[in-house]
């Protein structure tokens, strides 16, 4: 049985009918073909599926699409504006903050929320802020450096 939802994603409003069982992450990946948001676990512990819902980082595997009715969502595909990378995207590249790249969208979006609420975090605050995101490749060293770099570059 479908439920009607209106969800804004990356600036575009979508009216869709969804099965209530549809998780937000599956709605994004399959209904909207935004496959940058990944699924790495099923217990809200890996952070790969993190998106911004009304500006706040949340795990899109732990939200039903029907619950996002009326929300405004930013996925990794919508982070760069007008062809210009977000400072965090650039910083991840400059600092080699990614290897296989699977955790990267979630990691970057979590960091966006982190820097929104704390524009100049210490390394320790960055590590605490990213504790909900698992990276199996980098040992986090360069991820933390990337967030530090973005914070320095964009003192907003």
């Amino acid at each position, binding site marked *: *049985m479908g*439920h009607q939802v209106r969800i804004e994603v990356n600036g575009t409003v979508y009216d869709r009918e969804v099965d*209530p*069982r549809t*998780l937000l992450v599956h709605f994004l990946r399959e209904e909207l073909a935004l496959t940058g948001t990944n*699924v790495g676990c*099923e*217990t*809200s*512990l890996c*952070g790969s599926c*993190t998106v911004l819902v009304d500006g*706040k*980082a*949340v*795990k899109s*595997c*732990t*939200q*039903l699409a*029907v*619950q996002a009715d009326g929300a405004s969502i930013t996925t990794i595909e919508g982070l760069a504006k007008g062809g210009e990378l977000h400072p965090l995207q650039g910083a991840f590249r400059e600092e080699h903050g990614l290897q296989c790249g699977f955790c990267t969208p979630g990691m970057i979006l*979590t960091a966006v*929320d*982190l820097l929104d*609420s704390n524009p100049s975090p210490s390394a320790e605050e960055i590590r605490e*802020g990213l*504790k*909900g*995101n698992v990276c199996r490749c980098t040992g986090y060293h360069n991820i933390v450096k990337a967030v530090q770099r973005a914070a320095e570059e964009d003192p907003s």
Partner: protein
Amino acid sequence: MVPANFEYFRAASVEEAVALLHRHSDAKLLAGGHSLLPIMKLRLAEPAALIDISKIHILRGITHHGDGIRVGALTTHGTIASSEVLQRECGLLSEAAARIGDPQVRNKGTLGGNIAHADPASDLPAVLLALGAKVQLAGPGGNRTVAAGDFFTDLLETEVREDEVLTAVDLPVLGDSDGTSYLKFEHPASGYAICGAAAVVKMDSGTCREARLAFNGVTATPHEAAAVGSALAGSDLSDQAIASAIDAHLKIEEPLGDIQASGEYRVELAKVYGRRALQQARDRAR
């Protein structure tokens, strides 16, 4: 990753939610979803109906009224952690909320959902006990209030009846001579508490008027060490007084154990964390 099928209802008011609960026997309330959806995805829970209360805005928010603070059930852990009012008037709840899960979980998970799920390893239950908080419930017959100490009845079980909605938690305002602390020994995988110790002490010119100590993670329901509190009332809360009160009076029966930490070890952690939490609470009170 795919929950079993369910009917979905969105409630616009508490009354509607109560009515829906009344009508559907195997229904669960859905707020932030952070306790319920993970177990539904693993098919450890298969409710026939979900009643989404997340749009009942009246259940969201923190209000300061006279000698108390009311926190709506839908208030997120993130909001609680960063609330200036709570940090000033009842900082223990903010401190514990800031230790829940991770930022994304705190952005979505709610106070009501957390305590209604009654996970023994969750961070808030012991804090509510130590604070002497009261839980507000709404049901078909009207509203009622349950003391936090009576709220948690067993592993994953609470005083909330099948047709009741948890609407808010009432907290006391703490004064300058009160000190609190929440210390957590974290599970390395889940981030839940293997042992969480919440302490509240009320001091009066160097003498402890009242002390409360409670634990998460150690037993099936949050454990208040009432005897430790009684022993400390009237003491100077010196390190020695705290240590001997814990040695003599901290008795924990039937501790939980798993592959990460045995029951015996959790009890030992409770002694150490209980002592440290009381010491920190005392230092903050002065």
